[in-house]
């Protein structure tokens, strides 16, 4: 809608503090989930073209393209046709195309799809750098872990309805359910036998423990230390996925979609 691809049923769109217009459109970088590049075009020409339709003049475009070709390690492929590149490389080209006009707002839909871990890390680093520069990144993904690692603000959506919205840290705090993560030398039965434990299950050599409401955590920890050898003890923050599943259940919906 922001990108003028679909029209709103009602209301107005404000981006960067004013109604959306053509000038604002040039300040947005959009990377759709469905990749789109002219297959027969050479990488370099393609980048110049996409810069030109964002009204970037050729000199500026050249400087930025040169810079990003190096950053994205695409230089050896710049005269290859898009068709000849692997999916991951196409994705990197697409990524450069999204930022070649130095947008203030980035709208990224599943930006990491098709990228190997090395390139994922590469893109992630640059996104973090953009955030540090004060750019707004709207990041849409199905992979909640990515959202968790990258985002400040979260908006969870299911069946095209917003079900949860807010600052990630606050969301985690409000959704924390008094769970404890504890690493200790004890069998599952011994853990369950500790006073105040309502539920426990082993995760990666540690236990995630839920306490009976009202239990004094300090007292609980003391008891645990007396009985067993405790290596680590921490409050456990819920994962975004858990928050999401919980929210979906509460809303009576079941589908997945997240937006920062």
């Amino acid at each position, binding site marked *: 809608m922001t990108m003028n691809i679909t029209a709103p049923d009602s209301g107005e769109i404000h981006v960067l503090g004013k109604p959306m217009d053509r000038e604002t459109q040039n300040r947005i970088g959009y990377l759709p989930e469905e990749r*789109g590049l002219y297959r027969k*075009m050479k990488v370099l*020409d393609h980048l110049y073209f*996409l810069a030109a339709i964002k009204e970037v003049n050729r000199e500026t475009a050249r400087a930025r393209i040169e810079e990003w070709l190096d950053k994205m390690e695409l230089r050896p492929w710049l005269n290859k046709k898009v068709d000849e590149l692997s999916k991951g490389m196409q994705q990197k080209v697409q990524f450069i195309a999204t930022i070649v006009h130095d947008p203030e707002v980035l709208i990224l839909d599943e930006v990491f799809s098709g990228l190997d871990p090395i390139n994922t890390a590469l893109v992630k680093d640059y996104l973090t750098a953009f955030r540090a520069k004060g750019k707004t990144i709207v990041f849409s993904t199905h992979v909640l872990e990515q959202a968790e690692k990258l985002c400040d603000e979260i908006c969870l959506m299911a069946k095209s309805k917003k079900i949860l919205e807010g600052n990630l840290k606050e969301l985690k705090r409000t959704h924390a359910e008094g769970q404890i993560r504890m690493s200790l030398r004890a069998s599952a039965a011994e853990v369950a036998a500790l006073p105040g434990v309502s539920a426990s299950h082993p995760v990666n050599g540690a236990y995630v423990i839920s306490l009976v409401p009202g239990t004094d955590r300090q007292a609980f920890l003391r008891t645990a230390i007396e009985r067993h050898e405790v290596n680590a003890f921490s409050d456990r923050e819920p994962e975004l996925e858990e928050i999401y599943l919980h929210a979906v259940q509460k809303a009576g919906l079941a589908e997945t979609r997240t937006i920062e």
Partner: protein
Amino acid sequence: MNWRKIFAIVRREYTERIRTKAFWIATLIIPFLFVGLFIVQIAIARKSGGERRLAVVDMTGHLYAPLASELTHPASVTASGEEMTGEAAAPPKKQTIHWVVEPRPIVGDLEKTKETLRKEVLAKKISAYLLLDPARLRKDEVEYYSTAVSEWMTQNQLERAINHVRLREKIVAHGLAPEVGNELDKRVDLRAFKVTESGTAEEKGAGIIAAMVFFFLMYSTFFMYGYQVMRGVIEEKSTRIVEIVIASVRPTELMLGKIIGIGLVGLTQYFAWSLIAMNLSLPGIASLLAGSDMAPKIPLSMLGFFILFFLFGYFLYASIYTAIAAPFNTDQEAQQLAMIPMAMIVSGIAVYPAVMNNPSGGLAVFVSLLPFTAPLMMFLRTALGQVPAWQIVLSVVLLAATTVGLAWFAGRVYRVGILMYGKKPTIPEILRWVRYSPGKAVPAPAAREGL
């Protein structure tokens, strides 16, 4: 309307197409193909000169001698005729057939003779044989046997010679002098002059050939490049690039850029062709045509009309093709509707003989005013003869109005269509898109700007 963005689109469409091998192959091969065809034709025509050994079975007993001399010395038959001797002195024409004629008696019965001759033809001892049968001649028929019965020139010459001989025989039979035969055989040459408003009478002929070339050029462009526009639109859709482009450019701008870019590719091709044609034709064709007054002289007005009607026509058909392509995801789906503009273009070719025959007849006037056929037909009419000024003006006005209207329509269908994926839309759905206008997403939507 942001011309900077449109220009970027135009440039992409243009350079990407110019770079393809297909473009260069078409640009370089087609003129050579034409010239090659031309040369081959002339070569064949020349080769059709040369020796022809003809056996004649004369059952009338009196036709052979005059026929043989008519074929071997076309002028000397009636040496008394002054004009004939004069013509004989003239240099022989290029494609002269050198006739070697021999009489054949009937050996045994007719069938046996024919069989022997048949074998001789097959063995290439003779090229053909002729059967002069009185019974057939009464019905004005003569039998000719050869392996190649499509040698138009050979047969034509032979036919003329026989007619000549018979004509003279009849004249003598009526008690007239043989010279009368030559007089009777003379034909007039109709020399056509074109009457124009400026009063001057210029000879046409070469002009018509130029008009035909332009006519077919325009015709094939509407076809080829209109179709390319359609393919381009569908390709953008199926590769999903359109989503990225639309994030920066209005649909109308994308459409305009595309149509202009592809149109420029077509113009470039013409330009290249005419350059090649000039270079090839000056030394090549010109020398072959030397002496004949075929060298085309293209009047400036024809060029002007060509450009005018070409631009409108191309834009008209490109718009139609765009509207057809936008709602679909594959070429196959669009193919059915693509028949509509195709039929419109072809209908021009269908009525073209009628327009040629009577450039100011009712049908000609109608098709030159109807916007879909006007680009081709009005151009043809202006090239063939004087067309009343009001008809030209009316035709251009109607054409321009239709073009703008269709471009607007195409723009609306395109705007919605290019982002519609999935199921094939129905015609009523497409019409709904045209009526639909976007919300407040963009302060000045493309539709309000029109073109």
